[in-house]
Every structure is written in structure tokens, then in C-alpha cells.
């Protein structure tokens, strides 16, 4: 942190000098960029619930040629952390401040009674933090956003009020890709803004991923040639459920997933090992205890469940295609070489059945609403307006190969994601994989401020600005260091009452049952990336050491553990947890015994 802060201070100083020389461009000049030409453009490509292993460049079988091309032109990171759910991640991305200080101490949808009204738990990106787009705009960047916001709906909280000069944004956390339909009876309409105005309707021929891309291209095009760099935040809704997809793009993977999730996970891990994404001795996390062994399913069930993954794969491929359109546009206008791309998913893949959670109880208002608005549930209508498909925990585990668990939880599958960085600040070998870079989403703010020569303010609205928790990647991307964190640095997370701390190769996590044990579990990620072995019992001193860090973190960041959580009652609702072991019980898995042919005989008369 000291090194980063000194860099920021140096930039601050340089910016102040530049401001004195050229008052009209306060804080605008990056010293290095200024001497060599224009500062780089910046594009953040965010996939919503995109899994660690979904992209081809991370071992996925899904066709993502455009994302793979960015990886081939840049560097991949395999130890990049987000938060366990979306708006907390987004809030740290755009503020660089811990969630418990930036307003997303809990998601607005799950704010607990004891958190209500408390600073840091507003459920939106607090006005008490500075935002990356605002600071970049102040430093002379154009700032554009398209896609999902999910950090506040009030006029002073929408993208235009938080630093985006142009935007086309979905304010909600999810919704239809085809229209303004949302999920609950109380909030049936998704809210959108365009350039700070709430939309009364969507453009003609709207399809989220396509429209977002069109809008972003139009924003860039509108100001092209004025000499100013741009910051573009492309927060795709895809591939978040519901899996809405144009009809012509639904059948690219038909039958490919009938083999089942275990087989696809094994294939992905094998490719990850061959590519160097995962170490050769990496193993798959155990299948979630309530997910069936796919080899025991009837073909119809395999096909039905496989269809969900087919659509998800189509969603990812579709998103990749539109990202390719944006990249090609930049190449066409000659801006590609001067553009930094930062690509990742906002949290683990989604394994929870959101639709069931909202509308699964007959007799409720939401059930009635869903029966009207979201009941196109025939398999052939999946992807159409009014259909709702999510792929479930089994495929979420595939997306998070080889990790354990998924979105919402603090096993690696909930918080570790694929990261690609490319562009002029990357000096590492093109196409290389950095497996040592322990990086965090909050690092992006200091990194980009440094790149842009922008400054982080000391005060905001008269109050002291909350500290940035991230570490700049500039040296790491330049190949001067492998990781922005020392062995003493640590990161910590908390949401929904679940929590975790990582320092070096060690990690502790505390989670509600049944996903956790409601005690601190300890893992060595260097030796056990799939978190098979809880070492808490054998290494109590390490647990104690990390719990002390947790206590420090909780105190510094005013962590208020929620008194009501999503997990309550879950133990009763879910199957009892037993270990999952391949081949058990043999009653179900053993094959037909075939006697030697020469011992076969017809019955005697």
C-alpha cells in the first residue's frame, strides 16, 4: 500500500503542476503519457456471473474467440478476486473502497434489520465515496457506461450522477434482455437511464447485449477525434439469468452437455492444466452434495438439464461476439492499440435458483406475477421473452472449474475469477499467464488512476475520503513484479454474514450451514485450490493468526454482521450434507457383469 500511495502522491504532485501550467486541464496529464502522446483509452468488460473457466482462454469449451484474442494480446491472471456477489464487486471496482464503507456492506436486496440506516449499508454506492469515472472525467477523460449498474436508482445515485458523461444503463440487478420486464410483483419494471434520463421505453429491436454494444460504439464515435481519451465501462448483463438469447444463437451447443457436469468439469480442468491456468496437480472440488451424479440420470433429464448449459454457452458466445464488434470498431478507427482492456466476471457463477426464490411459492403475489410475466417455461421457448432459465448449481460448478461453490459464497468458486488485461500498459509477454499475481477488484481504481495520472481526493464533501484498499497493478503489468501484494498484505470479504480472509497462500472462511460449518475453516490454496481439506483442526495457530486479521478488518471497516441472512432455514430446506465420493454407492454405479462368452449356455430341457 505504501508504494502505491507514494505513486499516487507523485501523480498528484505532477497533476498539480500540470494544473498550474494549464488550468483548463486540471489533473489531466500523466507524465509518461504526456511525453509520448495521448493517454490510453480504458475499457472495462464485465461479464455478469461469468465463470472462471467459461472463456476458451481459461479452459472453457465455449467459443469465445474475441475474448481469447484479448488474452492472446495481453496477460491472464488466475488469482484475481472479486466479491461474492455483484453490487459489492461493482462498488469496489468503481470506488476502490471496501464494501462496508462504500455503501454495499450488504446487497440492497438483503439488508438486515440491524444494518438498516447505518453508514456503509445504504445498499447503493454511497455519495461519500469518489468514483473512478468522476475522477477520470475530472482528469480529462470521456466517461461512458453501458449495461448493468445495480448501485442505486435515485437521481443522485445513477451513472450520470456518479461521473459518467454518457450512459445507457439498466439500474436493476437483472431483468429481461428483451424488454423492461423485471422479476417481482412489487418491481415489475426494470429501470433504465440514458444520459441521465429515466427511459419510458426501450429502443426498437432492443436486445440487451447488442444494444449496449451499439450504444457504446455510438458514444465513442460521437466524440472521436476530439483528442481526449475515453473510459468505457461495458457492464454486460450477460450471461446473468434469465438466459435470453436470439433464436438463431440457441443451438450452437445442442447435445454437447448431455455428458453431464462432472465430465465437462474434468475436460475443462484438463485443458486448464495443459494451458498452464492450473497446476498439474490441481484436482476438482467435490460435486455439491445435493447435485446428482450425472451418470445416473436418464437421457431425458440429461438433455433437459444440458439444454440450460447450452443456452448459457450461447449467452457467453453471444456476448463475445458483441465484444468482438466493439474491438473491431476500435481497430477500424485506429484506437485499439491505445486501449487498455480489463476483462472479468463480477463474481462466481450463479448456482442459486433466483426464480424459485422469488416466485416458487404458490399463493404468493410473486407467484401470480410470474405466472403472467415469466411462465414461458417450455424448453423450446427458453430464450424467448417471458421465459426464465438459470442453469443451476451443477453447471455453476462447471463455470467455476476447478473451484468449490459459486456466487454468494466464499469458497474460491464464489470470489475468484478470470482476469484478462491487455493494452499499452501490459509489457509482459503477449498471451502469458500470471499465476502468482494475487489481485483484487479494488486494485483497478488505483491502477487506472495511476495510468490516467488522475488523483484520489483527500476529502469528499468536506469529509476525509475513505482509503483505497487496492494495490496498483502498473508494475505488475509492466513485468516489474509478479504480484502487487506482499506476503503480509491480506484481503477480506463479508456479505450475507459469510466471510473470508486471505493472506499469502492461506485462507480462512466462515459460512453459514450447510455451505459452511459456522466455524472458521482453513485452507492452503497453493496446495489445495479446490479447498478439499479443512486444516483448521491441525493448524489452530494459523487460524488464530488469520482471525486476528479478520478482527482488524472488521473493526477498521465497521463490519456489522447481519442479524438476518439468506441462509436462515437453509439447513432444513436442503438435503443433509454428506461427502460426495465417486463410485459410492456401488449399488447405483456398478456395471452389468458379463460372464465369459464360453461359459454362456441355454437352459437345459
Amino acid at each position: 500500500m505504501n508504494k502505491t500511495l507514494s505513486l499516487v502522491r507523485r501523480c498528484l504532485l505532477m497533476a498539480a503542476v500540470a494544473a498550474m501550467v494549464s488550468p483548463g486541464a486540471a489533473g489531466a496529464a500523466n507524465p509518461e503519457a504526456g511525453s509520448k502522446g495521448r493517454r490510453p483509452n480504458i475499457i472495462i468488460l464485465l461479464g455478469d456471473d461469468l465463470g472462471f473457466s467459461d472463456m476458451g482462454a481459461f479452459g472453457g469449451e465455449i467459443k469465445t474467440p474475441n475474448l481469447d484474442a484479448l488474452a492472446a494480446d495481453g496477460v491472464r491472471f488466475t488469482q484475481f478476486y472479486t466479491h461474492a456477489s455483484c453490487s459489492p464487486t461493482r462498488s469496489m471496482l468503481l470506488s476502490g473502497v471496501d464494501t462496508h464503507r462504500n455503501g454495499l456492506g450488504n446487497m440492497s436486496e438483503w439488508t438486515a434489520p440491524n444494518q438498516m440506516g447505518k453508514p456503509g449499508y445504504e445498499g447503493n454506492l454511497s455519495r461519500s465515496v469518489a468514483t473512478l469515472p468522476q475522477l477520470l472525467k475530472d482528469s480529462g477523460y470521456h466517461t461512458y457506461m453501458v449495461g448493468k449498474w445495480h448501485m442505486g436508482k435515485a437521481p443522485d445515485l445513477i451513472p450520470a450522477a456518479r461521473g459518467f458523461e454518457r450512459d445507457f444503463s439498466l439500474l436493476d440487478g437483472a431483468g429481461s434482455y428483451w424488454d423492461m420486464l423485471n422479476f417481482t410483483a412489487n418491481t415489475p419494471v426494470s429501470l433504465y437511464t440514458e444520459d441521465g434520463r429515466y427511459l419510458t421505453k426501450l429502443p426498437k429491436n432492443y436486445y440487451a447485449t447488442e444494444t449496449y454494444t451499439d450504444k457504446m460504439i455510438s458514444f465513442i464515435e460521437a466524440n472521436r477525434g476530439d483528442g481526449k481519451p475515453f473510459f468505457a465501462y461495458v457492464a454486460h448483463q450477460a450471461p446473468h439469468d434469465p438466459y435470453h438469447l436470439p433464436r438463431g444463437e440457441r443451438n450452437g451447443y445442442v447435445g454437447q452437455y448431455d455428458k453431464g457436469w462432472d465430465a465437462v468439469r474434468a475436460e475443462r480442468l484438463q485443458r486448464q492444466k495443459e494451458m498452464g491456468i492450473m497446476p498439474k496437480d490441481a484436482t476438482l472440488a467435490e460435486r455439491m452434495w445435493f447435485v446428482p451424479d450425472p451418470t445416473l440420470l436418464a437421457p431425458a433429464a440429461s438433455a433437459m438439464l444440458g439444454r440450460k448449459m447450452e443456452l448459457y454457452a450461447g449467452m457467453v458466445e453471444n456476448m463475445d461476439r458483441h465484444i468482438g464488434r466493439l474491438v473491431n470498431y476500435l481497430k477500424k478507427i485506429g484506437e485499439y492499440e491505445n486501449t487498455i482492456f480489463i476483462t472479468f466476471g463480477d463474481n462466481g457463477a450463479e448456482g442459486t435458483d433466483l426464480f424459485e426464490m422469488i416466485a416458487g411459492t404458490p399463493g404468493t403475489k410473486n407467484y401470480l406475477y410470474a405466472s403472467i410475466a415469466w411462465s414461458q417455461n417450455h424448453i423450446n421457448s427458453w430464450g424467448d421473452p417471458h421465459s426464465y432459465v438459470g442453469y443451476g448449481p451443477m453447471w455453476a460448478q462447471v463455470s467455476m472449474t476447478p473451484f468449490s461453490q459459486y456466487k454468494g459464497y466464499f469458497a474460491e468458486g464464489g470470489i475468484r475469477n478470470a482476469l484478462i488485461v491487455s493494452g499499452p500498459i501490459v509489457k509482459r509477454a503477449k498471451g502469458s499467464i500470471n499465476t502468482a499475481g494475487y489481485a483484487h477488484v479494488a486494485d483497478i481504481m488505483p491502477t487506472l488512476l495511476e495510468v490516467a495520472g488522475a488523483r484520489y481526493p483527500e476529502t469528499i464533501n468536506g469529509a476525509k475520503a475513505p482509503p483505497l484498499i487496492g494495490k496498483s497493478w502498473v508494475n505488475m503489468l509492466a513485468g516489474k513484479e509478479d504480484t502487487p501484494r506482499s506476503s503480509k498484505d491480506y484481503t477480506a470479504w463479508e456479505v450475507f454474514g459469510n466471510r473470508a480472509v486471505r493472506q499469502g497462500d492461506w485462507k480462512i472462511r466462515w459460512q453459514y450451514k450447510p455451505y459452511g460449518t459456522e466455524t472458521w475453516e482453513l485452507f492452503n490454496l497453493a496446495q489445495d485450490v479446490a479447498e478439499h481439506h479443512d486444516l483448521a483442526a491441525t493448524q489452530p495457530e494459523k487460524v488464530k493468526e488469520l482471525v486476528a486479521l479478520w478482527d482488524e478488518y472488521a473493526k477498521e471497516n465497521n463490519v456489522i454482521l447481519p442479524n438476518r441472512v439468506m441462509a436462515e432455514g437453509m439447513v432444513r430446506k436442503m438435503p443433509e450434507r454428506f461427502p460426495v465420493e465417486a463410485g459410492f454407492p456401488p449399488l447405483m454405479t456398478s456395471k452389468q457383469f458379463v460372464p465369459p462368452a464360453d461359459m454362456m449356455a441355454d437352459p437345459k430341457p
Partner: protein
Amino acid sequence: MKTMNTTLRCSLALVALAAFCPMLALAQAPPRFYWKSLAGANAVPVIYQDISGNSNPLDPAHVVSPEANIDAEVVTVGVAKMLPLFDRTATIALLETMGRMSSTIEAGGKTASESARGYGDPMLEFGINLVGPSAIMGIPDMMRYEPKFSLDLIADVFFPVGEYDSERALNIGQNRWYGRVGAPVVWQLGAWVPGQRTTLETVPSLWLFDDNTDYLGETLSTDPMFQLESHLTRDLAVTHWASLDATWMTGGASTVGDGEEGDATDTLGLGFTLGYQVNDNLAFTFGYMSTVNDSDPGDLQMDGFRVSLTYGWHKVIEGSKRLSEGH
């Protein structure tokens, strides 16, 4: 798993829908007949038709008797099965028609009447898909079935074993071999989602007739006849559908003995069908069709009501139902 049940129900519905259901005289195959189903699926149709006109409705040659008024009440029952053949869906069906007909002829101030009853000529149909989805070998294939553009080849043969009296002009049986070859086409228009499905089906076919060497003591010969049927069908709801039906026939001039060759037919019929999937196994249809270019006395004039019930089943699906019902 709710979705799974929905899909299974859909599969069952298709089993039932795919049953054979010929509309005598004016249309040979009902709407949705050439949709495909699970290999091994079976169907038993029972079709009641009430037909009136100036020609024997059971004789596809449609020899017109301008002064005649022929009424027929007939029932067709049969069995159909879908089979895989060279990875294509094949259909084999056997149908038998039975019932009563009566005719009244008024000419020169005199009235003559005739009637016939009994069993008609059984028909064997064989069809195989040439272009379109491969044979549907399991529920996964059934789930993924969409006709998109499908082209079949069919051959129908009627066996001359139905009741026939050479002293009468009006008979249930036709006393000759006849049949047709055709190339049914199904075009899927839009989504293949129950409640939203739309198809345009056309069946061009060529009828061929052997001679009836004992037709009132003479030989009845009929030229080949071309027939084009079309059905534009659309789901009204998940279990309800409707179609606009049309059929056009041309050719098929008949000659009796050494007399002059009769007129070739050039007939257009229009009608509609309403369909209802009663449950997983049972489908119901009601339809009406009438000739429309029939103002001249020598034109074929015919109309008919049709009600059908078709029961379909497949052993896998029936077994699943037994298990789910706890039997």
C-alpha cells in the same frame, strides 16, 4: 423438474397428434399429420365423417353423378406406428373404413335411390422422411424435435376387398387397386413452442387407379389425378389449435366401357379444423370442408363434417406415468 414434466407431456401430445386421420374424398391427411413423433409411438384413430355430395366420397376418383345426392356416414379406424428406418422416421399405418351410404337420383321427374353399407377397402400407408430431423429415438430427440423444413415420401395402397356389388353404382368398396404417391412438406413458421406453433403443410400427390372391370357390367377406367392439399395451422393455446385447410384436385377423368371419356375434375375445397389435446394420450379434432368451385352441374359438389379422436401411446412414457402415479 417441472419443466421436465412439461416436456414429457409435450412428447405425449405429439404421440397422439401424429395419429393417422384421413379426410375422405377432399383431404387425405389431416393437419399436423406429418409432424414426427418418438420412434415406437403408436396411435389409434377413430374418425367419424358425415359427407354429402354428388359423388361417392369413398372413391377418390370422384366420378360425378350430376343428378345424385349422396349421403354418407362413415367411420374410419386404424392403427399407426412410427419406426426408425435408416435413421429416418418412418410411418406405417393400416386403416379401415366402414359405414353407410345412400344416394338419391332425380332425373326426368323420377327418383331412384340406392344404398350401400359395410366395410370399405383397407388402406396401407408407408411414409418415410427424406429431409428434416433424424429419427426421434428417445425423449432427448423428442425434446429437440422441430420440423423446420421437412420432406417426406409416402405411398398409399387401397386393397380391393371392401364390400362391392357390381349391380350397383354406389359401393363402399371400389373393386380395384388404387393408391397414391406423395411428397408431404412441413414448413415450420416461427417458434416451436406449444401455444405458438405455426406450420404450413402441403401434400402434393399423384393418384393412380387400376381398372374396375366389373362396374355395372362395364370397365371403369380412371386417369391419374393430381391432388394438392395444404394446411395452415396455428396453436391457439398450448392444447388448442386451428387450421385452414385447402385441397385442389385435377385430372382423374373416368371412362366407362367404350364410352366417351368423362370430364377431368378440377375441384377446390376449403375448410377448417379445430384441434384439442384432451390429455397426454388423447386428441380431438372437429373439421368441415366443402368444395367451392362447384356451380356447374358437372362439378364435384361435396361437403363434410369430421370428428376424430386419436389415442396415442409409447411404452416409455406410459411406464413413466405408471411410476409417477405410484402404481
